[in-house]
């Protein structure tokens, strides 16, 4: 009786999940494979003829290969800001866990503030303009670092607590200075949490729309999310191209998901158990 009930519940959930969660993605894929006329009907049907490749080529050629530029920009943005987040975040997490002091408490407070306070947009633009960072890719990289630091530091600090202090002491007795201690002893041991940080922050920064919209306006240096936003009005009659674009920017997260599912879940549930 109980096994039958579970069986029944499992099948019911699978059927419901197909309708709720898979149909939208199938809709994206099918629309991306249709020709322009058929896609404008917005129907959930198999395309009468497949145009995946044509649509792909057309999307890539739109506006002088803008999507290629955007892809390069998004990649640079993601890689650079995640690299800085990992190194700087780990340095902070390490000191905050190892050396309790008044500065550590202040840093802890600032970390929490960073999680709660919504960024003040226009004053940030004003500051960036005065530093020559507004509308530049490196400016946006620094913004992503500033906004991502809080979460990164929290993850690193919790993980440093699991590394025994005896290791530090052994390295110090052997004559390691703080830089060697951190980069040669501690940082390699932080690898599991670093992978989590890399994966979670990459997805977040790659998918970020709001910050590029504010801090990187202009059509020369767009990111992928912005191209999609711009194409939304440009392709208002060519749904096939619009959805091909959506399909393209869904692929990187899909790849990350297939390979790093466990690390993503670990990062996102950190703190859920102990509160």
């Amino acid at each position, binding site marked *: 009786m109980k096994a039958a009930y*579970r069986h029944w*519940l*499992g*099948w019911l*959930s*699978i059927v419901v999940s197909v309708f709720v969660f*898979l149909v*939208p993605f199938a809709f*994206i894929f099918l*629309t991306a494979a249709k020709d322009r006329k058929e896609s404008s009907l917005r*129907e*959930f049907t198999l395309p009468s003829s497949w145009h995946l490749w044509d649509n792909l080529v057309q999307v890539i050629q739109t506006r002088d290969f803008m999507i290629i530029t955007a892809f390069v920009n998004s990649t640079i943005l993601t890689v650079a800001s995640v690299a800085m987040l990992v190194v*700087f975040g780990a*340095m902070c997490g*390490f*000191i905050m866990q*190892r*050396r309790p*002091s008044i*500065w550590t408490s202040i*840093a802890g407070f*600032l970390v929490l503030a960073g999680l*709660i306070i*919504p*960024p*003040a*947009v*226009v*004053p*940030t633009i*004003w*500051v*960036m*303009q005065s*530093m020559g960072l507004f509308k530049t890719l490196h400016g946006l990289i*620094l913004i992503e670092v*500033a906004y991502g*630091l809080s979460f990164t530091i929290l993850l690193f600090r919790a993980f440093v607590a699991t590394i025994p202090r005896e290791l530090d002491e052994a390295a*110090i007795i052997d004559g390691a200075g703080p830089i060697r*201690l951190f980069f040669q002893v501690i940082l390699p041991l932080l690898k599991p949490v670093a992978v989590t940080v890399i994966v979670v922050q990459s*997805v977040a920064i790659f998918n970020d729309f709001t910050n590029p*919209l*504010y801090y990187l306006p202009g059509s020369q240096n767009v990111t*992928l*999310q912005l191209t*999609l936003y711009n194409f*939304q009005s440009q392709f208002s009659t060519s*749904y096939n191209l*619009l959805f091909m674009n*959506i399909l393209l*920017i*869904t692929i990187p997260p*899909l790849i990350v*998901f297939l390979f790093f*599912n466990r690390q993503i879940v670990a990062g*996102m*549930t950190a*703190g*859920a158990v102990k*509160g």
Partner: protein
Amino acid sequence: MAADATTAEVGVSVRARARRRSGSSYPSWFFLPAAIIYGALFMYPTFASLFFSLTRWTLFEAQFIGLENFAQFFREPFLIKGLINTLIYAFVTSGLKVVLGMLLGVLLTSQIIGRGYLRSVVFFPVLVSTIGIGITFTVMMHPTQGLINETLALFGIKGPGWLTDPNLALLSVAFVDVWKGVGLATVIYMAGIVSIPQEYFEASKIDGATPWQNFWGITLPLARPATVTVVILSLIGGLRSFDLIWAMTRGGPGFTSDVIASVIYKQYQAGFYGLSTAGNVVLFVMVAIIVVPLSVWLNRREVEQ
């Protein structure tokens, strides 16, 4: 502020190291790179916003006008609408995420078939571009040609204009937000439920408890840290939400689905920088007065138990 302090400490620690070979192995200057970026691009603008929200501002000159911007925020009907919508959106999305996330968490930690598949499909939307999801659902929610209403029509139901009905637009966007975000709530609940010691369930089995009693008596109270995390995370996210609303309705029809974050963007685009910054301060205060007491209260009740 923090940057200055650490710079001072750098000087001290460098001198100390010059004197004796054995300086601190945990130098404060390790904070420095992060503190500079964080201080310059996050803390400083945040403090500056408190001043600029009191001005009429062109980015080049700021004219002090006192609380006029805030007065305007609570006077203009469409700005008040934005405030109310922000609250509705945040509470609807976080409420639904708690309930659905909890149910899915229980379901996906039980022994059902297709569990791995179900976990994957529920979680995957969390990782997909919000703009992409927004555009997809905008097309599917089209009042006459959209997939959702065409499906309803098959059953003889006349679906509403999800995004064109002023009373419904905000809730439709909130629904898509839940669709995209419930996977995160689910995995947080799954982590919380898995960490409950099995002894409790074994003991209740011996006492002859029903699954329903198990849920209310064991799972719900002991998964409390997960509930706290989901509530806090989705409230912060919901109050600050911008990209999905912008991708789906741009605050329309009219101003009926505007939230504070979209008002901030609209005022920024229109060049009302002072008013936009005041919106930021309002949002900050709103997040602070809702989230901070709530998280203190939720965490204290946890200790009492």
